[in-house]
């Protein structure tokens, strides 16, 4: 426990408190888009405006954890691997379990914080409020819904070249956000794109958030959809790890 707490303190400082760009991209950017799309570009009858502001809150919360996983987590793990931090942790008697727990906890806290800040902003600028029960369901939903993205972020961190990782991260995040209806309603997309969008983990997460925010009955389809993607990503990680393990751990490529 002592090692875990020390690791958490160490990682929090370097990843969050001393890293403004990370906070900007994972929390402030979705918040900026939320304000822009719901307060500045959002016009029409009041009910429609409020409905959209509520829907877009869920979308930006999902977008935030997607960005956090694919850019934040993947880049962090990649950078730590490149700087041999993981090798160094491996060489210590206590191993690197505390590192992975600490990073995971930071990711979860940031995602909850992002949701909270978006909710606060929605209340302040759009007058949207939720009951405590809705908040608890939203946090509970977030805890599960973020897992497929975090696993995907972990999987892509195994990409060897930094440039390739950057391209892959962009190729995953933005098409996924668009096709699963985080930016615009799915109905504006062609039918084939809608069919793809409706099986994406971010779509299930977004739908789940909407049900909670609009007090709709629980739909198991979203839960199963997320569980399916968790399973798929676990299998993907196992395959990647198998190949990486087969190659061994290299200190230097030429010897």
């Amino acid at each position, binding site marked *: 426990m*002592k*090692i875990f707490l*020390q*690791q958490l303190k*160490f990682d929090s*400082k*370097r990843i969050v408190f*001393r*890293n403004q760009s990370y906070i900007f991209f994972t929390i402030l950017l979705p918040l900026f888009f939320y304000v822009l799309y719901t307060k500045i570009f959002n016009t029409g009858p009041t009910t429609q405006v409020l409905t959209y502001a509520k829907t877009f809150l869920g979308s930006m919360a999902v977008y935030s954890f997607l960005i956090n996983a694919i850019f934040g987590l993947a880049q962090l793990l990649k*950078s*730590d691997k490149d*700087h*041999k*931090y993981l*090798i*160094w942790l*491996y*060489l*210590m*008697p*206590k*191993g690197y379990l505390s590192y992975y727990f600490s990073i995971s906890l930071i990711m979860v806290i940031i995602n909850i914080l992002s949701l909270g800040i978006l909710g606060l902003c929605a209340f302040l600028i759009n007058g949207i409020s939720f009951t405590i029960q809705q908040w608890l369901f939203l946090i509970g939903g977030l805890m599960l819904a973020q897992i497929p993205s975090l696993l995907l972020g972990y999987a892509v961190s195994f990409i060897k070249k930094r440039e390739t990782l950057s391209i892959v991260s962009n190729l995953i995040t933005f098409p996924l956000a668009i096709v699963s209806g985080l930016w615009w309603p799915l109905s504006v997309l062609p039918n084939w794109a809608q069919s793809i969008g409706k099986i994406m983990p971010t779509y299930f997460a977004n739908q789940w958030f909407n049900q909670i925010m609009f007090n709709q009955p629980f739909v198991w389809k979203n839960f199963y959809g997320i569980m399916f993607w968790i399973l798929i990503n676990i299998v993907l990680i196992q395959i990647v790890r198998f190949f990486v393990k087969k190659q*061994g*751990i*290299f*200190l*230097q490529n*030429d*010897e």
Partner: protein
Amino acid sequence: MKKVIEVQNLYFNYGTKKVLKGLNFIVNPGEIIGLLGSNGAGKTTLLSILLGLLPANKTTWVLEKSPGSKRAKEKIGSMLQGDLILGKVKVSEMLKETAIRYPNPQSLTKILNQINLVSESNKYLSELSGGQLRRVMLGMALIGNPDLLFLDEPTLEMDVKSRQDFWKLIQQMKLSGKTILLSSHYLNEIENVVDRIFILQNGNFIFQGTFPELQSLNHETQLSFKTKLSPQFFKNLPGVKNVELDHDLIKLISQDGDQTLNALKNNLSQLKQITIERQSLDNIFIELTKKESVK
């Protein structure tokens, strides 16, 4: 006496490329071993195996444990090639982060003094020079109070002063009974520190022994001087292998310097600006590795 490292018949391949071809060696407690070899000889692979990063065979033992086991790691400190430049991490934080992972760590102040980075302890790693970063890495290797140290190219990127301090520190480690296995390209640097050297070439040890033993592999001595005597005169002297005339300077390459000097004792008054040089360690190393490459 218990052996700190024992390796028998160690082979390692990267795919079809044979990197280590049946290594055998032991390292005794308190010994400092210099691991030498040209680039690609297999030094880092060997260190990786001993650290448990790459799989070892069943006859490789480190501190009487399998490489990479938790019990072995508790007593091992390592300084690898490349720097651990984690963004926005301070020197003292990095060392504390390391210390907490060992059962009997040394104090932060002691280590900062040893690596001479007291005034930089609150600096971010990204603000340090290459040499200072290497010293942080050394501090990380030492803070766990290890019995065995693996140092891979430890003085790379260090300036002259840092190098001197580093070797002084290694001397202190030696006196305190630590066992050290270090790889280096600089023979002259490690000459006064290591007890034995292992030279690795194409996955095999082509030499295991002390520096005097290495030097004894090549007896060549170069005598150079100015003289009015004809170069022809020196060709027939005992031990002389070659005579070169460099402007007015005569250079004799002798396979037995003592014998050649003895033969010259009656003509010493006719020789001016005499210099006597033994074959340098670097040259011996180059010759040795060249011979093996040809084989």
